[in-house]
């Protein structure tokens, strides 16, 4: 082979290499890229309906649905972090309101404020103030909530309670009374599926909410109330006692498996967010109030553990005007009522159309208007992601070891580090 050919070959190799590097910059024209982890049955249907509605109103804009599959968004969040740090953000992306938005992306100066959009659309009194606070940082609003999920729900089997002449528990004392009776009859009182440890954290945060009340619960995450507060210790002791009434194989189950135990009558109760309702009605074809029923978790009546999916506008979006149009649809009554009945959540707006929702949805919409809103820790709204991961780890050990003092100390230390 002559020298010329060698160089020709090398040039070819280099060309291929550079071509690979530049290949992703293909986006052109009037396009909006929507990034989410909504690939499951109901949520994907909701998103698609929303996109359809948007395209009907804006026929000149094409939507690129960049959903990344993976439970609770783990894979999507990793992909998103890479793109954001590489200054190649999607035009808008799904992010939980609260710490997940504020302490990461807003604090990193990666988001455009949407305060003007709120004024222009007159949204400021359409969403509850506490919810707007959850997506605000230092006086500016940064994202548009599309839905609301509730975390502090105790799901129960009405037939088990009826057959045993029991009432669903409103307090922790009642819970343990009921649980004792059920256990004696050989029924698992409380189904738990903490194969992924956030499910145990989810149960713990509802206990914290019950024991501390909404105000003190919120203060816990800002460091105003320390973890060695007697109420927190009481909550951990209660949580520990509750674990004795769970199914033995909880570490082998996920949240759906645990919810299914209630559906099939193997367990009496289960604490889970109201995506469990979607699972009951859509996947298991159960009828609300008849095959399954619900009540707030013990001592948390009047509080609403809120998990909200929101969409914002990252800095460096290739089509900010088109994206704002999408956010307008997302925040409109029509948009919210298109998306939420399919996804199984309730609208974030207070003036949405009640008739579009099932009996659970209507009841929860009423509660949402009247309750004190509290951010969920397990779902990233109350504290930075790093602390959430560390809490999941601490709870994982706590479930087996039950060391209250060590856990309290560890959490206090980790939260202080996270708030720094």
């Amino acid at each position, binding site marked *: 082979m002559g020298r010329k050919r060698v160089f020709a070959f090398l040039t070819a190799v280099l060309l291929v290499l550079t071509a690979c590097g530049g290949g992703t910059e293909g986006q052109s024209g009037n396009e909006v890229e929507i990034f989410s982890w909504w690939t499951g049955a109901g949520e994907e249907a909701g998103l698609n309906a929303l996109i359809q509605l948007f395209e009907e109103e804006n026929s000149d804009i094409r939507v690129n649905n960049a959903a990344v599959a993976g439970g609770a968004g783990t894979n999507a969040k990793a992909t998103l972090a890479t793109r954001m740090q590489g200054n190649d953000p999607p035009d808008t992306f799904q992010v939980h309101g609260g710490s997940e938005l504020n302490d990461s992306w807003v604090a990193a100066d990666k988001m455009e404020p949407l305060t003007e959009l709120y004024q222009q659309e007159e949204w400021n009194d359409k969403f509850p103030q506490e919810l707007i606070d959850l997506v605000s940082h230092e006086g500016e609003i940064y994202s548009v909530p599309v839905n609301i999920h509730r975390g502090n729900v105790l799901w129960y089997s009405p037939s088990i309670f009826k057959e045993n002449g029991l009432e669903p528990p409103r307090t922790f004392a009642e819970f343990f009374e009921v649980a004792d009776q059920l256990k004696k009859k050989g029924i698992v009182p409380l189904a738990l599926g903490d194969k*992924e440890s956030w499910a145990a954290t989810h149960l713990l945060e509802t206990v914290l909410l019950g024991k501390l009340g909404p105000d003190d619960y919120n203060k816990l995450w800002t460091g105003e109330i320390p973890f060695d507060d007697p109420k927190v210790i009481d909550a951990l002791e209660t949580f520990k006692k509750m674990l004795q009434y769970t199914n033995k194989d909880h570490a082998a189950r996920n949240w759906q498996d645990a919810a299914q135990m209630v559906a099939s009558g193997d367990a009496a109760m289960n604490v889970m967010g109201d995506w469990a309702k979607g699972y009951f009605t859509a996947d298991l074809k159960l009828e609300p109030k008849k095959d399954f029923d619900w009540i707030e978790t013990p001592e948390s009546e009047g509080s609403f553990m809120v998990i909200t999916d929101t969409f914002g506008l990252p800095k460096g979006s290739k089509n900010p005007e088109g994206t704002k149009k999408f956010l307008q649809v997302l925040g409109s009554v029509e948009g919210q009522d298109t998306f939420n009945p399919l996804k199984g959540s309730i609208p974030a707006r207070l003036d949405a159309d009640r008739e579009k929702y099932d009996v659970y949805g209507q009841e929860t919409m009423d509660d949402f208007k009247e309750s004190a809103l509290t951010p969920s820790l397990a779902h990233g709204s109350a504290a930075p992601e790093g602390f959430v991961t560390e809490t999941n780890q601490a709870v994982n050990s706590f479930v087996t070891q039950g060391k209250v003092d060590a856990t309290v100390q560890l959490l206090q230390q980790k939260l202080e580090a996270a708030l720094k």
Partner: protein
Amino acid sequence: MQDSTRTEKSKLSARSLDDRWKAFLFLLPTLVAVAVFVYGFIGWTGYVSLTGWNSLVPDFSWVGLQNYVALFQDFRFQSDLRNTVVFTLLFIVACLSIGLALAVLLDQRIRGETFFRNLFIFPMALSFIVTGVVWQWIFNPSTGINLWLDRLGWTDLPVWYVDTRIIPGWEWGAIQVGIPIALIAVVVAAVWQLSGFTMAMYLAGLRGIPDTLREAARVDGAGEWQIWRRVILPQLHPITWSVVIILGHISLKIFDLVVAMTGPGANFVTDVPGVFMFETTFRGNHYAQGASIAVIMLVLVSILIVPYLVSQMRREERG
């Protein structure tokens, strides 16, 4: 005469120089790619592990070994190290003994050898994710083999990978040292997948031993058992080493099987550094902390690989 040889020589050396130059050019893209994408990124990971980048905001302030110190004090990481050692030992020993046993049986020139060979090696074709999911069903305490055991009248059923006991479980600081029972279930799945590979390696080794060696030993009056112990097994040493190296690095960086089967497990009885690294980096956004776990995993693998590489290089030099 002298002149002509000199020109011949210089022509030759010029040509070989030309060849070397060409060879270098051909290797250059690969060299650059490996230098950047392997060693460059290893260096980058090492550098990140010494910084304070523990949120979504990049932060390259120098913190020295702080991330490593925090890591070794962490209950989860201590459990991970215990699990890695236990997993690696159990996994390699089981694969070697089962693989060798199968190879010896197949080497008896039995009927249907091809069938059995394929049967045992087939699991290797699956991904660890599939293996994990299947064995998760099998070992599920409420729906797996326990259904059969229950029907057979077995009371007090084992809970398999949900078992949080550690035997013998000496306390060492906060963690318990010993074999986590739950981890054995994961080892079983891994062994099922890879003992066929060990078998194939040993079978090839056995077939490579010339029959004349056995015959010579027989003539010298050695019994069958003695032939095995003194003639055949020593010949298999290099194979054993290769298998240990290959299985060892798989077990030190195992991730997918654990994720599919158990996750970290209750009280981290089945957690491994790979899973911890992933969760720390991509769930917790603790990039520097995650990088330090990755560096430790690299060190663990090199403890196993480097002596092997060195011995190989020495052999090449000698050969």
